[in-house]
């Protein structure tokens, strides 16, 4: 009897699970409930559980998620097993997604402001309006502006754009309407430094894709690999693999603070802030002197004899380079004197540790040197990034198995209408060639692509002009931009449209609030950030109908566009809505079916992700190969490599950057580097701001959710578990540093910088550098919802000077110095 029972249960179980694996996204009793015994499934009152595919919206990683919905209520989120980033797993934030949907403080529909005065303590006195009124109001305003010939005074600002259906619509809008400010992205507040460092060395203005699964050594410069580096969830999966594979991947981490990443690594080096370049150069120095560079990728001395001797020049033409450019010049100008002893003094690290790291890195293959904004969020950030990335050339990591490469694009279908066909004379007029409000790409910031942090300042100064209207999407600069208070002044006389579903600070300055859907309510596609190289794009499928009267941001753009006069209006009427956009994009899959069988919009909705392996290029022992359909066998010419992979002026990995040399005069003016040296990766001391005596570092912890976790009670409770921060985040301070200033453990403190003062609660942290204070950025909101509002400590953006790396334009969030005293 027992056996029979078991067999029946087992059979039913297998049937159910087979069905679930096959068509989990189709609603109607599949998924969770069917896996329960039949009697229980019936007991659920008819409303079975459905699983819809979505993408987590709490960081840029784009983990595919399974959203569990029963009787119209979303009750669980798990990683999507079919998504190559998530692989069925999630980071701690991912599970809290339902919180965003059911946030008690969400905006319930469009509203307009009735109190003309703006300020922290001014109640906007919002009153509900219809979407028509909201769109009509904005369209009328934009039309008037355009009719006056001042369309450039409209600016779009965005933070987390997801893809073609939202931020992807900006470009055409700007062209048709006639503004250079559609849109100002947030990259300069994010991680532009590492992108620029790679542009300067290997010609790709991009983040890297990485082959973590096959690497044997990681030299990690300041990437929060186990906290905030993207894609966090996948990195932890890779970590589990790397730490148990044979051979075990060894990891050395370099950071300015003790973190889970540092603690879990084989070696943790607590480096002095803004000196990573010195360490990287010393590693390069040891690799060169000891002959540990990858000769197949870099090349070798012509006579095979290693002439790299500490402190001695090598003849410029003695070295035959293969895929690099300028190594002898770099050695003579920079590396020959970058001894471990020299670096030890600058970095405060032990000389022996530096040598040991260099030898490990130099003798292990494949090995990669990774970095993110830690080392690059300083005035010397791009150079620091270049020094670090140079190690990847020396180790032959570029495009190698177990190395790093760049991301391939998605073969999307085109839109049904082309914006070029809808340009009126106004749009085509040369008068439209105005500078951007952020002056990115102008003589002020010739090497940058975007400079959001400059906009408030520029608007106030009327340079290059005053803004009239600003529309914000997924960004809240009044809270997050450096010197955030300037934005409060600037937005007072700008017509502000905020589109966040949540009552953030920027919304408190809004004249019109157009709340968008939360991510579980959206139909939205999103191509991957650089991941493993091969192309991928995931799709958000709404789990339920929108809870409130909200809209897709893409539809807001389209609806405003439809209300514009002339061909611009016609364009948007033809475009219709975001679903059309996504359907048109999905047409591209017909010719390129995904590995998981996704071939059109419907199958995409079902699987939630389209991807197509493998990555098409590989460097193996100094030769580049292209995928021929079954293996990397098609040998590439130098021209192929230059066109597709190493996109520098020389077509090589440049130790002497042609990109930088083009801007030699600017770099000399802003950073004081002699013109004959500007091309070389080098260490220059950072210019620290703030005027204090202690470095202030404001990291993102695992629960940060790009600043959107501040109103989630569960996230607040776990914001800083490493220090016991349950209701606040604590300021981490070395006990000696604290005691010298009369600061008690758990005592209240004031952090003072030139821009002002914020309060926090200090906790003794013996592992922290005595010259550095750590205060995770999260709290200090004066809006954003009932749990976020007024939660200590103060907002770190309030005391962070608006200073940027002249080359990348990256805001130097971590370069401030402060004084601290007991409060």
């Amino acid at each position, binding site marked *: 009897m027992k056996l029979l029972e078991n067999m029946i249960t087992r059979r039913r179980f297998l049937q159910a699970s087979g069905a679930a694996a096959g068509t989990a996204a189709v609603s109607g009793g599949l998924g969770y409930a069917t896996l329960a015994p039949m009697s229980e499934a019936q007991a659920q009152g008819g409303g079975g559980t459905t699983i819809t595919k979505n993408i987590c919206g709490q960081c840029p990683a784009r983990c595919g998620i399974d959203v569990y919905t029963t009787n119209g209520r979303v009750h669980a989120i798990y990683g999507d097993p079919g998504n190559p980033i998530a692989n069925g797993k999630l980071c701690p934030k991912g599970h809290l997604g339902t919180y965003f949907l059911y946030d008690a403080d969400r905006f319930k529909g469009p509203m307009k402001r009735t109190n003309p005065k703006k300020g922290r303590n001014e109640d906007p006195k919002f009153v509900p309006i219809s979407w028509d009124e909201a769109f009509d109001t904005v369209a009328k305003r934009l039309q008037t502006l355009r009719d006056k010939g001042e369309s450039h005074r409209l600016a779009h600002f965005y933070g987390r754009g997801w893809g073609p259906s939202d931020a992807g619509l900006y470009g055409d809008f700007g062209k048709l309407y006639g503004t250079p400010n559609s849109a100002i992205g947030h990259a300069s507040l994010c991680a532009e430094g590492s992108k620029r460092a790679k542009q300067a060395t290997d010609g790709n203005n991009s983040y890297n894709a990485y082959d973590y699964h096959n690497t044997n050594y990681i030299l990690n410069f300041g990437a929060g690999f186990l906290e905030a580096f993207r894609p966090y969830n996948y990195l932890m999966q890779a970590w589990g693999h790397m730490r148990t594979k044979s051979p075990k991947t060894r990891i050395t981490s370099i950071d300015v603070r003790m973190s889970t990443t540092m603690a879990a690594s084989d070696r943790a080096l607590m480096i002095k802030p803004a000196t990573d370049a010195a360490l990287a150069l010393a590693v390069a120095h040891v690799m060169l002197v000891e002959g540990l560079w990858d000769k197949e990728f870099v090349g070798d001395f012509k006579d095979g004899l290693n002439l790299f001797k500490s402190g001695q020049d090598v003849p410029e033409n003695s070295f035959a380079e293969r895929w690099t450019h300028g190594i002898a010049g770099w050695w003579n100008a920079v590396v020959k004197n970058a001894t471990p002893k020299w670096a030890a003094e600058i970095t405060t690290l032990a000389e022996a540790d530096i040598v040991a790291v260099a030898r490990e890195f130099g003798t292990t293959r494949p090995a990669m040197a990774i970095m993110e904004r830690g080392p690059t969020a300083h005035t010397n950030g791009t150079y620091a990034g270049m020094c670090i990335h140079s190690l990847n050339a020396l180790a032959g990591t570029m495009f190698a198995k177990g190395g790093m490469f760049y991301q391939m694009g998605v073969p999307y279908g085109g839109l049904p209408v082309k914006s070029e066909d809808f340009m009126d004379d106004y749009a085509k007029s040369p008068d439209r060639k105005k500078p951007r409000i952020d002056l990115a790409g102008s003589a002020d910031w010739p090497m940058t692509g975007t400079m959001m942090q400059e906009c408030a300042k520029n608007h106030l100064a009327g340079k290059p002009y005053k803004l009239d209207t600003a529309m914000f999407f997924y960004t809240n600069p009044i809270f997050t931009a450096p010197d955030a208070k300037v934005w409060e002044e600037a937005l007072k006389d700008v017509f502000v449209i905020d589109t966040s579903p949540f009552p953030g600070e920027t919304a408190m300055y809004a004249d019109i609030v157009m709340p968008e859907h939360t991510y579980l309510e959206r139909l939205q596609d999103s191509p991957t950030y650089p991941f493993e190289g091969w192309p991928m794009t995931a799709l958000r499928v709404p789990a339920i109908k929108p809870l409130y009267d909200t809209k897709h941001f893409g539809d807001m753009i389209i609806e405003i566009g439809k209300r514009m006069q002339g061909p611009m209006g016609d364009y948007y009427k033809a475009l219709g809505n975001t679903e059309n956009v996504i359907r048109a994009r999905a047409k591209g899959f017909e010719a390129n079916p995904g590995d998981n069988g996704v071939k059109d919009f419907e199958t995409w909705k079902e699987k939630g992700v389209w991807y197509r392996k493998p990555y098409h290029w590989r460097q193996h022992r100094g030769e580049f190969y292209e995928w021929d359909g079954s293996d990397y066998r098609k040998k590439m010419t130098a021209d192929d490599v230059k066109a597709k992979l190493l996109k520098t002026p020389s077509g090589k990995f440049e130790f002497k950057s042609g990109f930088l040399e083009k801007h030699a005069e600017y770099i000399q003016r802003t950073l004081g580097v002699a013109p004959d040296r500007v091309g070389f990766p080098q260490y220059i001391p950072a210019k620290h701001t703030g005027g204090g005596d202690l470095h202030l570092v404001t990291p993102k912890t695992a629960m940060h959710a790009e600043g959107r976790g501040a109103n989630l009670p569960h996230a607040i409770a776990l914001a800083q*578990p*490493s*220090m*016991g921060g*349950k209701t606040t985040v604590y300021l981490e301070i070395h006990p000696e540093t604290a005691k010298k200033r009369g600061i008690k453990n758990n005592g209240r403190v004031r952090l003072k910088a030139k821009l002002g003062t914020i309060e926090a609660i200090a*906790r003794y942290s013996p592992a922290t550098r005595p010259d550095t204070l750590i205060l995770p950025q999260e709290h200090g909101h004066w809006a954003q919802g009932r749990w976020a509002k007024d939660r200590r400590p103060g907002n770190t953006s309030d005391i962070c000077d608006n200073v940027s790396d002249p080359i990348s334009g990256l805001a130097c969030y971590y370069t401030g110095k402060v004084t601290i005293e007991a409060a």
Partner: protein
Amino acid sequence: MSNNASTMTPPSGLVNTVALAGIAGVVVSLALVFMNMAGQGHASFNTTSDGVVWGLPVSTYLFFVVMSTGLTFVSAFGMVFGIREFYPVAKRCVWLALATLIAGFTVLAFELGHPFRMLWALPTSFQIYSPMNWMGVLYGAELLFIVWKLQKLEAGDWESGVSKKLGMASFIAAILAVAMLGSVFGMMAMRPYWFGGMIPMYFLLTALLCGVALTMLTSYVAYGFDRDRMPGALQDLLKGTTSTLYASLPVVFSTVIGITLVALTLRTATGLWSHQDGFEAFNWMVGTPWFLLQAIALLVAFFLMVNPGTRAGQGAQVGAALLVLVAMFIGSYLFVVGGQVVPVFKGVWVADFVEYAPSLTEWMLVVLGVSLCLALYGFGEKKLNLGAAPDK
């Protein structure tokens, strides 16, 4: 009713005051407790799952039920062991044992998540391994025997076979109950501060101490702090002028204080001396101002009762009794909380020692317990002739 009219003395006016104060206290504290708990439930307590789980209400419960046992002991001196010199306090002790038991369990009822569910869940789903259960059963038995015995005493039946057997039964139930209460803590091997088979013995000792102290105090309250109004036998007991040494309340008192002091000192010294993980609680304990207060109170009381010049004095006796009661209340608090102040694991989630300070609601439960005792005592003194004793 009164075959013992010779000892009948009208209760003093003080008793009225005590009773009224008790009733007022009950009303006020209950009002506050209900108000806070109706709104917030046990969130009005400062106890936490990752901190102190059993706080002031539990230590107050402990204080009262331990005292109840002690009072049963004192009553047993006369009624079980036939030391007739203790008869003058016997009935009062029995009544007070009942009053403190009621006070203790009332406070506990407010501490439980589901006190009424207990009434059916306990008998129907009894866990025989749980010392808490046996403690409950034994205190239940004690309660039963006490009430029964009181009923006999009210009927003037002091020395019938049944009455004597009931006295014996109360005594045994009380011993086992307090011992089992000690075991509730003493069996917790995972909490070194509490652990040990001798903990029940310590509970027995402090029970006796509390019982004697309250006996002494209420003897004076009953007669308006006027020894001359007391029956001669009671005066003899208090002054220690009886023929037998052990029939002297101050001698018994000083002896028990002395033994308690020795036990407490050795327990503390042992805890401080050992490096066993968890014994840090003893460092916490001696670091609290409460510990100092407890130690001073016991030492002063001991001095007052040992010193022949003060031992028999009314003021000294009242003072010593009060000091001992305060010390034992503190001791109970330090014992209960001390077992929990060392977090189960180290970590930044909690300080080296768990922080706990009772909330207003928790303090109101203390007021409730004390007031209930006062009110019940006053009632007994007025209505039940607690000074009664059998004819010689």
